């Protein structure tokens, strides 16, 4: 379980996150929705140690993440699929996926996990020798997700997986997120595509300029008048 309390983050004089509290229980899909610049990505970056917090606490399965080195967090079972994919463009698809398993001490399952990723994303199997930089945005998203799966996580943070993708690909990506959820993986999903995000999530938080303004069951938020006006274009 991931538990965030009173988290504040600032870049110099700019406060990006202003005292938010949220939690993600084991096995849940929780969505964090909000406009551009609301602090969604900053929140995820702080969880995995890419950005330091100013105050507050982040505890993951009893471990204080604010005191854990960024490169050790993946070993606790938390993977992060960053916004903009961040695949290694000059490595092949397969090398990218193997980098996902970098943190594993026991490498006996790597081949089996690769097969699993290739069953999820058959297109990656066809392109496994191709440099990741030559792939389309959707394929790069698959690489980034596959890379996260390779670290055998119990929790995955996903940052804007639908960004820049065609509606068909968005559906495919969300189908995989649901599949991972069925396997028991906990998901914290950051999305601007609020409709998709709320439709697969158990619970959701609405973030506005660094503060959580609403929270609740995703199905309730999906039908909430204010949410519909602000984020669902209805």
């Amino acid at each position, binding site marked *: 379980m991931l538990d965030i309390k009173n988290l504040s983050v600032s870049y110099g004089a700019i406060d990006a996150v202003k005292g938010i509290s949220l939690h993600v229980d084991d096995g849940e899909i929780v969505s964090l929705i909000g406009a551009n610049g609301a602090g969604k990505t900053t929140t995820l970056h702080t969880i*995995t*140690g*890419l950005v330091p917090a100013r105050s507050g606490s982040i505890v993951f399965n009893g471990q204080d993440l604010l005191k854990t080195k*960024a*490169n*050790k967090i*993946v*070993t606790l079972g938390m*993977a*992060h699929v*960053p916004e*903009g994919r*961040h*695949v*290694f*463009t*000059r*490595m092949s698809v397969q*090398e990218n996926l*193997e*980098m*996902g398993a*970098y*943190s594993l001490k026991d490498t006996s399952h790597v081949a089996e996990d690769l097969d699993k990723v290739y069953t999820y994303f058959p297109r990656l199997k066809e392109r496994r020798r191709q440099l990741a*930089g030559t792939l389309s945005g959707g394929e790069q998203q698959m690489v980034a997700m596959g*890379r996260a799966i390779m*670290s055998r996580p119990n929790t995955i943070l996903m940052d804007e997986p639908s960004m820049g993708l065609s509606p068909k690909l968005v559906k495919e990506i969300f189908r995989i997120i649901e599949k991972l959820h069925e396997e028991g993986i906990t998901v914290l999903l950051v999305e601007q595509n609020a409709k998709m995000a709320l439709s697969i999530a158990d619970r959701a938080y609405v973030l506005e300029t660094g503060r959580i303004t609403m929270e609740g069951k995703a199905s309730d938020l999906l039908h909430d008048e204010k949410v519909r006006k602000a984020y669902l274009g209805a």
Partner: protein
Amino acid sequence: MSGFVMFISQIFNGLKIGSVYALVALGYTMVYGIIRLLNFAHGDFIMIGAYTLMLSIPALAAMGMPAWTAVIPATLVCALVGVLVERLAYKPVREKGNSMTALITAIAMSLLLENGSQAIFGADYKTVPTIVSIPTLTIGQLKIDGATIVSIVLGVVMMVAMQLYVKRTKQGKAMRAVSEDKEASLLMGINVNGTITLTFAIGSGLAAIAALMYCVSYPQVSPTMGMMLGLKAFVAAVLGGIGSIPGAMVGGLAIGLIESLTKAYIGTITGGVITSAFSDAIVFAILIIVLLVRPSGLMGEPETEKV
């Protein structure tokens, strides 16, 4: 000696010095690749390596060890100096300053190493004891001396080894990952600072091996010996495409060949108008021409804007 034999022996000369440039360029390019810093002190690591050879050969000989084993302390000393320079000078500057402060720090480190060794060893040339004595290889009229054979063989072995290391090993892959995307590397669980330190250690260690190859042919050391070697290697790295390991190798060998062939033939070709004294100028002119045609170097990939 016939013209053809003369030409072949010039090719071997070019490959010999080109191997030295290639190994130094390899260190340059690895460090640039991982932290985007032109480490102007890199040439001076050759000098540190050469002084270590000079001091450790007699010491090892006293213990009954062959002279070439001095490459071991030389590599260790260079790797250590490289890591110290990174940790004490570059890392703090990288975290607080910008790329210009880092570049100036690198120039400062170069001056510090040169003047530091001048204070310790004096400014004059010192002789390095004989490192290897391999007989000259004679094929018909063609004579290739032992130093040339040692340099080319060692150069090729090191280049192949480095390529395999970076492509195949876990640490090598981590280096490539860090050089491309530090945030994503952290998310994979890679110790980014440790990987940068390791890159410095390896790059600087390669300079020690280059020092051995150089001293086999030119057995003397001076505090400023690394300046021109470092500059040529830098040209080689840029020519090949900075950041690219195969590029550094190709660039190094190309610079060596260009230099050796211009020295041998430019006078004859131009009827004495341009003499071999211009060979360095020609090397730099070729660099400029190549960069005009291919700004990212022979084997470098064009910089793509990251989204």
